């Protein structure tokens, strides 16, 4: 302690103190926020990773680069986690058909096992969100009303309040969420595919995510209480309907009513 107190007036003492302070707070934050990082799943075997690397080199490296370091045509995948691979490849968005504003959904190109292997490989490159398991997708006790509120605040501006999808700039769009599985919704939230922002566990807690999924399930299951929903697109489809169908039928009647007399 004496040695330390003797150097307390050293010109660099303040710098050293500042460094220590930064290290301490940064360290604590890193430990604390590790809790936020989806727990990297460690059930992948070494064989999976090896096979995954082969698949990656053959199918993905053209754009994402050898070792997934990224190229001009595709981003680095280090740290995106297994969930991102499972979502992008599992919904057919990857491999990309062509460069464009946004990767479109198309028939899935790989088997479940191959997707698993590629996920394992990408997860091995750096820690990232893991594929959600039984625990994350357990909707027992989820509150759809709270999920609806979270959905309106966080998701509806792009995906539409009824999850019917919506337009973004320059040809990009937020797709309809009808028929999207619980796992895919969860993965999309934690990885932020395409133009979607990441909703990590600090933004929306795992319980909140479960609430949102429960909300989406309930509005999909209940259907439309008021009759055919005309695409859930709001007043545009309603206006189009009354002009085309409503007025159309009425004009047919007016023609019929006046044709008798002449």
């Amino acid at each position, binding site marked *: 302690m004496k040695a330390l107190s003797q150097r307390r007036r050293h010109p660099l003492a303040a710098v050293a103190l500042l460094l220590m302070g930064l290290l301490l707070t940064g360290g604590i934050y890193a430990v604390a926020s590790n809790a936020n990082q989806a727990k990297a799943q460690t059930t992948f075997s070494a064989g999976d990773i090896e096979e995954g690397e082969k698949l990656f080199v053959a199918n993905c490296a053209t754009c994402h680069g050898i070792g997934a370091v990224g190229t001009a045509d595709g981003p680095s995948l280090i740290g995106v986690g297994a969930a991102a691979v499972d979502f992008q490849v599992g919904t057919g968005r990857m491999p990309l058909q062509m460069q464009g*504003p946004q990767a479109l959904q198309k028939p899935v190109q790989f088997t479940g096992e191959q997707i698993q292997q590629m996920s394992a490989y990408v997860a091995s490159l750096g820690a990232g969100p893991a594929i959600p398991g039984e625990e994350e997708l357990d909707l027992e006790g989820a*509150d*759809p*009303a*709270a*999920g*609806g*509120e979270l959905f*309106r*605040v966080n998701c*509806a*501006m*792009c*995906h*539409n*309040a*009824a999850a*019917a*999808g*919506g*337009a*973004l*700039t*320059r*040809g990009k*769009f937020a797709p309809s969420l009808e028929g999207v599985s619980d796992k895919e919704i969860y993965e999309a939230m934690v990885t932020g595919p395409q133009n979607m922002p990441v909703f990590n566990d600090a933004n929306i807690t795992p319980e909140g995510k479960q609430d949102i999924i429960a*909300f989406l399930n*309930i*509005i999909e299951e*209940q259907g*439309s*209480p*008021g*009759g*055919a*929903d*005309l695409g*859930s*697109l*709001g*007043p*545009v489809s*309603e*206006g*189009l*309907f*009354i*002009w085309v169908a*409503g*007025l159309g*039928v*009425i004009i047919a*009647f*007016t*023609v019929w*009513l*006046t*044709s008798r*007399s*002449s």
Partner: protein
Amino acid sequence: MSSSAAGQQYQPKTSVGRITNFVDTRVGGSAIVKEFGRKIFPDHWTFMFGEVALYSFVILLLSGTFLTFFFDPSMAETHYDGSYVPLRGIEMSMAYASSLDISFDIRGGLFMRQVHHWSALLFVAAVSVHMLRVFFTGAFRRPRELNWVIGGVLLILAMAAGFTGYSLPDDLLSGNGLRIIDGVVKSIPVVGTYISFFLFGGEFPGTVIIPRLYVLHILLIPALILLLIGIHLFLVVVHKHTQFPGPGRTNDNVVGFPVGPVYAAKAGGFFFIVFGIIAAISAAFTINPIWNYGPYDPSPVSAGTQPDWYIGWVDGALRLMPGVLGNFPFEWNIPFPWGTNTLSLNVLLPALVPAGIVFMLLFAWPWIEAWVTKDRREKHLLDRPRNAPTRTGIGVAGVVFYCVMWAAASSDLIATHFMVSLNDVTYWLRALLFIGPVVGFIAARRIALALQRKDREIVLHGRETGRIVRLPHGEFIEVHEPVDEYKRYKLVSFDSPEVLSAQPDVNGHVPKTEKRRAWASRFFFEDRVAPVTPAELEQAHSHGHHGEVASEHDKAAISSH
């Protein structure tokens, strides 16, 4: 009344007769029926849109009354406790909660809500189509100019009624709409903020706007609409209905059927047809599913947020307006002695200018046309749209202008459904807003003139029958069948104003305004297809259809085929 005029008191024999006589001698019902019941109305399907509008308004009153029994226009906060699970426990206003109750917990409530909303859409649509019919057939001309203006005011009131009603459920969608109105109001220089605070009772959204809109929606606006409908229909009776030209139809008569019994029965039946169509639509198709949108909260905005169709064009204009043009910003901060005032032209211009142009032209049009033609006579015979090519062209230009803005309100849905870029949709529509009306004007005018030429051709040479005949000397001709007198009358009897050059006044001087009028007259009537004159008709017939039929002998040969 008239029954007692004979001096001897009329004594009814049955009890029904006594009651009706009692009423009649005190109200004068038979005189009203005699006068109004014998009123003649012409028959044409395009004359029925006003009726559709009237009936949808009646349906609005009926279904609206039902809704007022259960709707609570209060912005007091509550927690929803109804039967719609995805919103249970959510904090919301009483207005939204009671709208949800109407939808889910009151028997027939959702159906009545949908009837109310669908008929509101149909009401404004019918008013619009009715106005288009009146415009394109020239039914706004003397003596009906004021009734045309009343119709325009009714259109504005219909839009106001629709918008105030759309805002009442206090859901996310309607709240977004109110926020846009708030933004437009605030963009008015200097006083905008004060008006907004006055309107919302403080900063948006406040707690008073829903009750205020409710009073406007169920009291003031419907009362004004009713009053104006009354005047509108009274003037229709006073002016008599217009009719399309035809044999026996002149500027001084009306050819058609009397109100009683023909139209009383027809119109009564038509009311139920309109009600039936709306009820069928309301039973099968959902409208404004407020439960999807959630309670209003100023922070979220849903994708696909649009106003109802009749406000769409104003929303579209706002969407089309750029914030900057090159380096020219539309938001100006102007320093004043009392501080800096912001002038948001990027909001103010699109919100006021297009609507201002459309309604100014709409209201002024009868006088513009009377000024150009100098024709101040009463017009009870309608124009077929083709017989007024320039008016038709201008009308189509207006429709295109409106429709481009209308389309712009759904630019996001155009982008997603046709897989195109939202930005490109906006750029195209911006260009179309200026080019479209010009192209629409030229095309519609050319088509109208071409149709007039076709009419001339039919009058002079008859209809092409498609029968090809070989004459004895080997020539092939197509047989043309002359149109009958009734059809011909329709095709030749129409007003065809000619260019009226600048007229000097009493001093022999031609004023500037008169020169301008002459220019407008040339613009209107320079390209003109004149109706066939009797002399032309005579000539065409006597000269053997321009040699198509060579001789009597050949004629006989043709008719035998």
